[in-house]
């Protein structure tokens, strides 16, 4: 590719690529090296000093954070709320999406239901922050993981419904009809044919719901005070009277990135298109 381009284009390309890569990768680099520093070394070399060369890296921060009860509690809260709400979203979302794609509703047309789900998706969550707070207070759920699971499910469900609906719309209905004629109920056709074929869509949607719940800050801040604090809320509380403790913020930031990143790596083989190839083409 380079051989046929002029020097100017080549230079431009290289500069652009280097800038873009640096821009994207630098925060991670900074986070990692800072998390390996002790507090004396934080500001060395304008905070970008290289480990081993400019300072001796240490796992002290990581060990300290992981042993911190608040951290353990927040990690547990984040993991439970994100996973449980994602499971709810996927179970309800795939069923609702399937119903919207396959059945015709008489009283309220399918299109209107879909648009209603979509409207929930574009609604700014902050608009319902106070009503949610009052509802949770009335239900006695303030500062509980249940409150967070409920609110995350509320906000991620429309996304799951819309994505799964459009996936099922693309899936040829004949395969499920074949299952119906072959002796299965609608649920049988859904679980044995439609659902296995929608694995890529299910996995991608679940990952996005998981990430959204994992990163959620507004409702976590609003609805939790002590027991139900999640990682984002914990990180934001990293500024103390002693000033910003960068080594701690960096460690917590990296800790927050790790679980979703590992998740994505684990399931990436499912996120492949073309699983339906060969079903209906000649």
């Amino acid at each position, binding site marked *: 590719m380079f051989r046929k381009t002029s020097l100017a284009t080549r230079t431009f390309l290289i500069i652009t690529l280097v800038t873009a890569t640096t821009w994207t990768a630098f925060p991670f680099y900074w986070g990692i090296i800072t998390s390996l520093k002790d507090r004396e070394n934080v500001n060395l070399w304008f905070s970008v000093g290289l480990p081993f060369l400019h300072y001796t890296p240490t796992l002290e921060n990581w060990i300290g954070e992981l042993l911190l009860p608040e951290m353990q509690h927040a990690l547990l809260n984040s993991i439970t709320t994100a996973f449980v709400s994602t499971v709810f979203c996927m179970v309800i979302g795939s069923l609702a999406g399937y119903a919207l794609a396959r059945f015709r509703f008489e009283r309220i047309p399918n299109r209107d239901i879909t648009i209603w789900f979509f409207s929930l998706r574009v609604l700014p969550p902050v608009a319902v922050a106070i009503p949610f707070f009052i509802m949770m207070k009335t239900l006695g759920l303030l500062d509980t993981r249940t409150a967070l699971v409920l609110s995350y499910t509320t906000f991620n469900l429309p996304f799951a419904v819309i994505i799964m609906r459009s996936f099922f719309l693309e899936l*040829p209905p*004949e*395969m499920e*009809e*074949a*299952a*119906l*004629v*072959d*002796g*299965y*109920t609608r649920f*049988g056709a859904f679980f*044995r*044919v439609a659902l*296995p*074929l929608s694995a890529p869509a299910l996995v991608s949607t679940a990952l996005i719901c998981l990430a959204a719940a994992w990163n959620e800050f507004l409702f976590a801040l609003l609805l939790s005070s002590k027991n139900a604090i999640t990682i984002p809320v914990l990180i934001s509380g990293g500024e103390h009277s002693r000033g910003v403790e960068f080594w701690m913020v960096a460690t917590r930031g990296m800790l927050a990135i790790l679980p979703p990143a590992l998740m994505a790596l684990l399931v990436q083989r499912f996120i492949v298109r073309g*699983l*339906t*190839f*060969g*079903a*209906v*083409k*000649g």
Partner: protein
Amino acid sequence: MATITLKNVTKCYTKGLPVVKNFSLDVADREFVVFLGPSGCGKTTVLRMIAGLEDITEGQIHIDGALVNEMAPRDRDVAMVFQNYAIYPHLTVYGNLAFGLKARKVPKPEMDERVKSVAKMLGIDRYLERKPRYLSGGERQRVALGRAIVREPKAFLMDEPLSNLDAKLRVHMRFELSQLRRKLGITTVYVTHDQVEALTLGDRLVLMNAGEIQQVADPVTIYSRPANVFVASFVGSPSMNFFDAQVVRENGALWLAGEVFKIRTTPNVAGLDAHVGKPVVCGVRPEAVALVEHAAFQNRSELLDARIDDVEPVGENQLIYASCGKILFVARKEVASGALVRHAVIGKNVRITFDMDQIHIFDKGTEQAIHSP
């Protein structure tokens, strides 16, 4: 083994015109019935109503004597073969064949035996462990057929099962289907828009147009005695030649008077007396039209002046396109008796004649047949 009975079945989609109107049909046990008609004539809808995949707006469907209007597809014990195969891509060939048996809780050893014997019969036993995406079109079609056969259902419903195959493979699979139906002898309803498939496979043909039955008859009758203009024009390739005429009585004989010609009817053309003075539609198949020098008809008609527009070679036949006034006639001529040289005859003035033993006459208004040979 079962009969299928449809009584005045009508299907309307909400706020729409009926797509199937007053459809009544009795399919006998072990019979192979073919629904034939143009795209959108409602033939697939009828099939899907028999399968239970579409609700019935009005009327009744009985399978093996039992009313199935409200019965779920899984309880009707019919098997369906879809146009696009609809085999399960996430299952192996074995899984596809065994899928319906699993639903019916057939014990494992029996299931194994049935799947293997059907796979063997269809020549796909080598692919049992393969996923459908590694199979060719013909093999997928066999899997789809196998999935239906292995269930040993009361009836097969086939929705244009061969239309996705290429021409050569289609002819081959048509032959195999024909063999299979003889071997299995299961009641079958087969939908197609391909008249060759219909004429070769069916015990009886149901010709449909615009949601209505046009004619129900065996293939020979459909071809030789079409009930109306639609059936006459739909079956046969190339299509029957039609021309408008008026029945007139002159010199004690009945004549068919067209715009530029007049043909005297022969005594074998019956039933026209009631139509004197009325307009009719006459039809002759290409094989009953010939240039006068080739005509070997026993009872040939008056000669018509025409001009040759084109000659098409079609294997052992030549199709001669000759226009007579505004009417374009197609004549089929066997090449064996000497081929026409295309560039030498185009534009030539010729005289054509019909075989009066092969003429069809339809009422202009109702389009129903008045006389068939």
